[in-house]
C-alpha cells in the first residue's frame, strides 16, 4: 500500500501515527512545501520570545520519519492531483503515485485589499517558521509594530515580539480582543492584563488606508509604525481538492471517517471542516488537537481500520504574559458565572448539556468541563451545582468513577 500525505504538520503526523497503528510496512511519502522537519506551528511566537528553539520546536523527535519508515519530499509544492491515475503532481514536474492520499494542506493567511498596502515596505504575516524568521530580521528596540487583528495569531505574535520592539499597536474591527473565543467580560480582563505591557489596542476600528509607514483608521485616527503584521484571519487551502471536483465549502468537506468525496482521498487538519458537536454545525475548527485527531483517524482508516472522529468542538488553551485562558464549546444558553480579581469562570448550558465555558486565570482541571461538552453528558446525571463550583470527578456517579478510576480507559 502506498500512502501519500500532502502536508507535514500536525494532521500529517497524526496520519503517520494512525497508519502505523494498523500497517507497519506500507510505504508512506510525506510532501511539504516547507523544508523543515515537522515542527509545531503555534511555537513560532515562543521562538521569537526565546522560550524555545529550533531543536525543541520539533513536533516529533529527529528520528521520527526514519522510525516510522517515511519518505519525505520537503520543499516541493504539490500543484495537482490526477485522480484517474492516482498520482500527485509536483512543481518540479515529477509525479508520485498513491493508493491512499491525504491532504493536510492547512490554511493560508488572508489579507484584505487595503488601500495603499503596496506602499508598506515592511509587512509580514505570522503563520510559518519562514514568516517568523523574516519578522525576526525586522525587529529592533526602536521599532513600532502595527498588528492588524486581535485574534489568537495576532496576539501571540504580539507577545512573542513585545520584548524586542519599542511598542505594539493592535487594531481590530471587533470591539473586543480574541472575539472568536471570548465574550466581552472575559476579553476585558485579558485585554487589561496585556495592556500592562507595551501593547496598546485600538478596537472597533479598521485600517482604511496605508501610506508608507502610516495607517489611517476608520475612526479618523492614524498610527505610525515601522513594521506591519497582518493577522486578520486564515483561509483553508482547499484548491487541490476543489480543482478535481471534490466537495468543498469553506473548508474541504469530509465524512466522519475523514474521507473526502473523492475515492481514496482523505483530508485532515485546518484545511477541512468539522461537525462541531457543541453547536451542531459544520465549521472550520482550525485547532491543533483537532488536527491531530483528524489526521490519526484518517490514517487508521486509510490503512484499513475503522475509526470515527465525531467529537470535534472548538477548544483553546492560550496564555498571555502568564495569564492563562481556556475556552471550549459555544457561548450560548444560560450562564453560570464566577468573577474574581482578574479571574473569571463562565459556564454556558442549555438543554441539560454543557455547551461551552470560559476560564480566565484559574484553569485547573478544565478538561473535566471539556469532556462534559465533548461527550454530551446529561447534566441531570451529575451534580451540576458541585461541578459549577469546581471541576471534579466527585460530581459524577460512583459507577462512573469506578469505571474510570478502577478500569483501563
Amino acid at each position: 500500500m502506498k500512502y501519500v500525505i500532502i502536508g507535514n504538520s500536525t494532521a500529517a503526523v497524526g496520519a503517520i501515527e494512525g497508519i502505523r497503528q494498523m500497517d507497519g510496512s506500507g510505504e508512506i511519502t510525506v510532501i511539504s512545501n516547507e523544508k523543515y522537519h515537522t515542527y509545531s506551528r503555534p511555537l513560532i511566537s515562543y521562538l521569537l520570545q526565546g522560550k524555545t528553539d529550533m531543536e525543541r520546536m520539533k513536533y516529533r523527535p529527529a528520528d521520527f520519519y526514519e522510525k516510522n519508515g517515511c519518505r519525505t519530499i520537503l520543499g516541493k509544492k504539490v500543484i495537482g492531483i490526477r485522480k484517474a491515475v492516482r498520482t500527485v503532481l509536483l512543481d518540479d514536474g515529477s509525479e508520485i503515485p498513491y493508493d491512499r492520499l491525504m491532504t493536510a494542506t492547512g490554511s493560508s493567511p488572508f489579507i484584505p485589499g487595503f488601500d495603499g498596502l503596496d506602499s508598506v515596505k515592511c509587512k509580514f504575516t505570522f503563520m510559518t517558521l519562514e514568516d517568523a524568521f523574516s519578522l525576526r530580521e525586522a525587529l529592533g528596540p526602536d521599532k513600532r509594530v502595527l498588528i492588524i487583528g486581535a485574534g489568537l495569531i495576532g496576539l501571540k505574535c504580539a507577545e512573542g515580539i513585545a520584548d524586542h520592539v519599542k511598542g505594539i499597536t493592535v487594531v481590530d474591527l471587533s470591539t473586543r480582543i480574541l472575539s472568536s473565543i471570548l465574550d466581552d467580560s472575559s476579553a476585558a480582563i485579558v485585554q487589561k492584563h496585556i495592556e500592562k505591557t507595551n501593547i496598546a489596542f485600538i478596537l472597533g476600528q479598521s485600517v482604511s488606508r496605508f501610506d508608507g509607514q502610516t495607517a489611517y483608521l476608520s475612526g479618523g485616527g492614524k498610527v505610525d509604525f515601522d513594521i506591519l503584521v497582518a493577522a486578520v484571519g486564515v483561509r483553508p487551502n482547499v484548491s487541490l481538492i476543489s480543482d478535481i471536483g471534490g466537495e468543498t465549502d469553506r473548508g474541504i468537506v469530509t465524512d466522519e471517517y475523514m474521507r473526502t468525496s473523492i475515492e481514496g482521498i482523505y483530508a485532515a487538519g485546518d484545511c477541512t471542516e468539522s461537525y462541531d458537536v457543541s453547536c451542531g454545525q459544520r465549521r472550520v475548527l482550525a485547532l491543533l488537537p483537532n488536527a491531530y485527531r483528524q489526521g490519526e483517524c484518517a490514517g487508521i482508516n486509510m490503512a484499513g481500520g475503522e475509526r470515527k472522529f465525531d467529537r470535534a468542538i472548538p477548544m483553546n488553551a492560550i496564555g498571555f504574559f502568564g495569564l492563562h485562558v481556556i475556552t471550549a464549546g459555544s457561548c450560548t444558553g444560560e450562564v453560570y458565572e464566577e468573577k474574581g480579581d482578574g479571574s473569571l469562570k463562565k459556564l454556558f448550558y442549555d438543554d441539560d448539556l454543557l455547551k461551552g465555558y470560559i476560564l480566565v486565570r484559574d484553569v485547573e482541571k478544565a478538561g473535566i468541563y471539556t469532556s462534559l461538552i465533548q461527550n454530551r453528558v446529561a447534566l441531570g446525571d451529575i451534580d451540576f451545582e458541585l461541578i459549577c463550583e469546581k471541576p471534579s470527578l466527585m460530581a459524577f456517579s460512583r459507577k462512573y468513577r469506578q469505571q474510570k478510576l478502577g478500569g483501563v480507559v
Partner: protein
Amino acid sequence: MKRVYVNEKWCLGCRLCEYNCAFANTGERNMALALRNLEISPRIRIEEGSDICFAVSCRHCEEPLCVKGCITGALSIEDGIIMVDEDKCVSCYTCILSCPYGAVSPSEHGAVQKCELCVKNRSGAPACVAGCPNGAIVYEER
C-alpha cells in the same frame, strides 16, 4: 500494563498519597527535609466530599487526549506511560484543557506536571501506592 487504580471504598482521605508523591518527586532522601515549609503540589490529588473521598492521578489512557492535543510533542507515550518532556513543554495548558480527569496540572517549574508512575524519580515504583495505608491505591495489571 500495570496502572495505578483507585478504589474509593477504601480511601480515607488521609492525603498520604499526596505527600508521598510530592516527596518522591523532590529527589530528596528525607521527607522532613524535603517537605518542611513547602506547599506541596502533588501529581495525585484527593477529591473529598462529605462522605466520599478518592485520589485521582493520570489514568495513562490508551487513547490519551493530552498527548494527541499536545502542541509541542512534549507529551508522549513511552511503554504505555505518558511522560512529559519538561524541556519541550511551553505550558500552553492544552493538556489541561484536554484531560477528562483533571490529572495534568501546572507546576512551578515552567512545564506541566502529571503522574509518570515514578519511573523518573528515585522511588522507581508509584510512591502513592507504597504509602497508601489502606490499600485504596493499587498498582496492578487489570
